[in-house]
C-alpha cells in the first residue's frame, strides 16, 4: 500500500525530477541551488500541506472576498 509521509522539503534529486517532467533539464548544481532556494517556503507551508478539507470549495477566496464587499 502506498504511504504518504509528511510533506518534505524537496531534495536536489526531487527538484531535478520535477523539472524534467516540465521539460527542463537541470544540471546538478542548479538543482541543488533551487532546492535550497525553495526549502524555506516548503518548510513554512508544511503545516498546511495535506490538511485542507476534502470539500473545500475551490472558489472560497472569491466567496470570502465578495462577502466582505456585500457588507
Amino acid at each position, binding site marked *: 500500500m502506498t504511504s504518504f509521509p509528511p510533506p518534505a522539503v524537496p531534495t536536489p534529486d526531487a527538484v531535478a525530477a*520535477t523539472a524534467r517532467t*516540465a521539460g527542463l533539464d537541470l544540471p546538478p548544481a542548479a538543482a541543488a541551488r*533551487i532546492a535550497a532556494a525553495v526549502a*524555506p517556503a516548503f518548510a*513554512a507551508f508544511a503545516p498546511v500541506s495535506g490538511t485542507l478539507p476534502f470539500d*473545500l470549495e475551490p472558489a*472560497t477566496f472569491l466567496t470570502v472576498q465578495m462577502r466582505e*464587499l456585500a457588507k
Partner: protein
Amino acid sequence: MSASSLRLSSAPSDPALLTLTEVAAAIAARRVSSREATQACLARIERAQPRLNAFLSIEAETALAAADAADAALARGAAAGPLHGVPLAHKDMYYDAGHVTTCGSKIRGDWVAPTTATALQRLKDAGTVRLGALHMVEFAYGPTGHNPHFGPARNAWNPDHVTGGSSSGSGTAVAARLTYAALGSDTGGSIRLPAHFCGVSGLKTTVGRISRAGAMPLSQTLDTVGPLARTVEDCALLLGLMAGADPADPTALGGPVPDYLAATRAPLAGRTIGIPQSFYVDDLDPDVAAAFDAAIATLERAGARIVPVVLPDQARLSAASTLILVAEAAAHHAHWLKARPEEYGAQVRARLENGFAIPAVTYLEALGWRGPALAAHLDAVAGLDAVLAPGAPMPAPTIAETDLGGAPDAEAMIQRLTRFTRPVNYLGLPAVSVPAGFTAAGLPVGLQLIGRPFEEAVLLSIGAAFQRETDFHTRLPEAP
C-alpha cells in the same frame, strides 16, 4: 531629515514640484500650460537621468507635441478629462499600442505592444501626456531595482542605494519629481517597497480592483496594478480613474467606483487601527522602529483609536505566496526559458527556474488555502479599519550590498526586504504606503496601512489624514 533635503513650499515656482492634483487643476484653470508642465518635467529628467537611471526611454519631442495639442484643445474648450495635459511616465510593462514595451528585458527589447493596457488607456482617456517609459526590474521579478540589461535604477535620496523594486523607476522618478505619478505593479511588494525606500506614496490595490488587461503578467493570482505618487490624494485620483469593470479582464470588479478623492477628505476620528504584536515589529532597524512608533503616536493624537492586534502566522502566508509566485512565474516564462534562456539576466533566470521545483499538488494547496487564510485574517481584524505596519524592516540598502553577483549576504538581505509585503499579496488585500520618516543618513522609510478587501477608500482616508499631520511627503531630495 537629511541636511540636503528640501521641504516643498506651498507655491513652488517650478511646475514640476506641484502634486498631480495641483498640476491638473492648474492646467485646467490655464494657470500652467501643459507645455510648461511637460518642459519642467523634461528639464528635471535631463538633469537626473545620468544619476538615477529612472527612465528606459525619454520621448521629449513627442511629449512636447502632445502637450501643445493638449493646450490647443483646452483653448478650444475641449478638455479630455481630469488629467488633461498632465505629463506622466509609467513602469515599462504597461502595453501602449505602437510603443516598444521592454518589460525591463532583453527578450522584449524591441517588442512593440499591439494593444494598450486598460489602466493606461483610462489615464490616457483622462488626458495624460506620455513622457517615456520608466525603469523596472527584468520582468518585474526582483525587489531591489537591479537590472543587468539596463543597469540599476538609483535612489533619488542617495544614488548608491537601491530604489526597491520591481517598480524601481516609478519610485525614484516620483521622488525626484520627474513625473507627477507613475503606474507600478505589486505582486510581492513591487509598489510598497519602492514607496518605502524612495519616500513616496503608493497604493497596492485589492486583487480585482483594477483591470490587469495589457499589463505584463508575472503571477495571475497575485498581480495587481496601482500607482505611486507624491501624495495619498494623488493615488486616490488615479485609482478613481482606473478602477471599474473591464470586458478584457473578467476578474476586474464591476459596479460603481467609490469616490476615492472624497474619501481623502474624511476625518480620522472614529477610525480604529490595529498594531501587530509580532512579525511586523520583529527585527526592525532602529530608524524604522522609531518612525513606526512616531506614526502610531501621530495617528492617536489625530483621533484614531489604536489597538493591538494578533494576526495569523504571517510567515506561513508569505511561504504560500512564494509557492504560488514562483510556480506561476515559471509557467508564464516556460517557453522563453527553454527557447531563449541566455537572454535572461542570471538572477531572474535563476528565480524563474525555482518554479519548476513546485509540484502541482503543492501549488494547488497554496491556492486552495487562500480562502480559509483570508477568512482567518478577517476574523483577526474584525472591528479594525486598518492594520499599520512598516513597509520593510530596514531603509534602502546599497546597490552593492544587494548585488547577488558579488555581495556574500545579498540573498539573505533580499529575503528580508520582502518579509513584510508578501502576506498582503497572498491575501489579495489593499495597502496604502506613506512616507513616515528619515534615517540619520537621510534615507526615507515608510509604513503600510493594510485594509480589508476593496476598502481602498478607508485606507486612503487614513493615509491622507496622516499626511495632513506630517510633512514627510512634501520633502524632496536635492535638486537633480
